[in-house]
């Protein structure tokens, strides 16, 4: 009922059709060093960034950075060891409430704002990147794109149930504009960049 009323009112009241802009191309600095820009933006919003030569260096650093955290889960099969257990699926997302550190491999890294695009299939479960106390992202520098337009070009018409851009740890400045990291999601974000 309301559906048809709303649509009829719109058809009557909306103005004559105006075309969409034909192109979404914007000026872009072609000489920009994407890895440097990404790192600067990520650190600017409170992430910790490590540039590593290879995958092998990552495990020990995680061990040092999170010495007393009890529950660590890795959704990245290449980064599983005795100290870093693999993610195990439980249909009830509440069971992950005690996760201290969760490790992910996003699909796209955006230099202009350090946002990381991660689709549901790389999250374990949807709640995990949010419920974990600390989040670790493994970023292959080949995934870097300059800006959001390039990111959506790469995403194209990909199908997913849920996906998100994550930029840094959760935060709030609601109390007198004082920035506090660790609002409801992770308290920290650690990024490993490798090639």
């Amino acid at each position, binding site marked *: 009922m309301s559906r048809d009323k709303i649509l009829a*009112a719109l058809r009557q009241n909306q103005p004559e059709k105006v075309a969409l802009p034909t192109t979404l191309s914007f000026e872009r600095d072609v000489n920009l060093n994407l890895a440097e820009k990404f790192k600067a933006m990520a650190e600017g919003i409170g992430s910790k960034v490590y540039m590593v030569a290879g995958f092998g260096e990552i495990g020990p650093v995680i061990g040092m950075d999170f010495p007393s955290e009890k529950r660590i889960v890795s959704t990245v099969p290449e980064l599983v060891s005795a100290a870093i257990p693999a993610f195990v699926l439980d249909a009830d997302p509440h069971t992950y409430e005690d996760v201290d550190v969760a490790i992910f491999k996003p699909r796209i890294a955006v230099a202009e704002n350090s946002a990381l695009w991660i689709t549901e299939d790389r999250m374990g479960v949807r709640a995990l990147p949010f419920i974990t106390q600390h989040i670790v992202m493994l970023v292959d520098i080949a995934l870097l794109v300059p800006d959001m337009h390039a990111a959506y070009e790469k995403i194209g018409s990909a199908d997913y149930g849920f996906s998100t851009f994550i930029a840094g740890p959760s935060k709030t400045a609601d109390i007198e504009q004082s920035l506090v990291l660790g609002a409801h999601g992770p308290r920290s974000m650690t990024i490993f960049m490798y090639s």
Partner: protein
Amino acid sequence: MDGATQTHPELSEIFNKDEERVDWHDETLWWIRQKRDKSAHSIPEWEQLRETASQIKNNVLSDLSAYLVSFEEKALANGIIVHWAADAAEHNRIVHGILKENGIQQMVKSKSMLTEECHLNEYLEQQGLDVIDSDLGERIVQLAKEPPSHIVLPCIHKKKEEIGDLFHIHLGVPAGTSDPQILTETARQHLRETFLTRRAALTGVNFAIAETGEFVVCTNEGNADMGAHLADVHIASMGIEKIIPERRHLGVFLRLLTRSATGQPITTYSSHFKKPRPGQQMHIVIVDNGRTIQMGREDFRNSLKCIRCGACMNTCPVYRRSGGHSYHNAISGPIGAILAPNLDMKKYADLPFASTLCGSCSNVCPVKIDIHQQLYKWRQVIVKEGYADSTKKIGMQLMTFTLSSPAVYRTAGKAGRWFLKHVPFAVNNKFNPWYKQRDMPEAPAESFGEWYKKNVKKS
């Protein structure tokens, strides 16, 4: 909280009693405006982005019915349940119905200005249901039993000591706590418990994509995601104008939204909800509540392009010095002042006058809404429809008389200067509204016209 009986000037007067607080409020918001400038100026293509966003939104408005049909079709195919609500009451009944059907008594909610507009919390509380707001700022004003005073920064009017007092009463922090770090941690613990125990979560919608049937929710705190991914039932409420045509258009809007709002390059989370997770119910409630009428008002329809960044509030000299509550509407500031009269012209007749028409709001608007021109046009509509208050009408008539005759204008100027100089108490009193919170200036010896005449003759 219903300000039906008090107008913007009356409510501003209350806010203006505490001069120190007004200065602090003013400076805080101006600081955010400066962060916005810095962020916008770091992008050479900024103006091109604004123009593109404006063009996309113009297209959306011109074909909104078709886009909504497409969005619905795709969303249904994705397994989302779609509801349509003609007004606030129907929206609230739909949400209540979904909760009742699932036997749910308690819900957690992330920021949604639409549910503020619909007064959903009050409605559900009257039905005996419990709603907890999870955005920190919204939780704070909820505990204070106040509406948000800003669409992006709900408790920007509150000092940390006042928040500490609220948390002492409601969340048990020691009396006198005012450290934002400690207060935020307290809210984190309290709301984590809420997220883990609520079976229903309601979120707003920042963008709904006609092409794919997905919707995007942006937060810094992660509260929308914490609520939605842990709940059995996710309800997303959206106004009909939240539609954008294609997924790739998000590139334009996500670059503009947070830079305009707070100066951040992007929110921490820009979550794309396309399908419910297995076993979960996902509902979308598409709400009109006056928007189709606004669409029919040619002079005001492009207020529907708004993406709710709040930049117009942060820059507005009147908002900064009068506070969000003085607008007695869910959406305050310049954008609220052009949206509200559409909902109730009589109740909000005062709002288009709460502006200096300086145009700063239009200059910062990321989708190029001509806000200050619409404020000016609303004034004319309101006076014509007979909703302007009588002192304003008499004042305007006197102004018209004075300004349309050079002789009267000169005499009036002279008389004004004479009064200011010789009997300042005649104007420095409570009968002169310009004297409130201000001292009248010292009178110049002569007018510009007199000075010009003398000096031009000399040379």
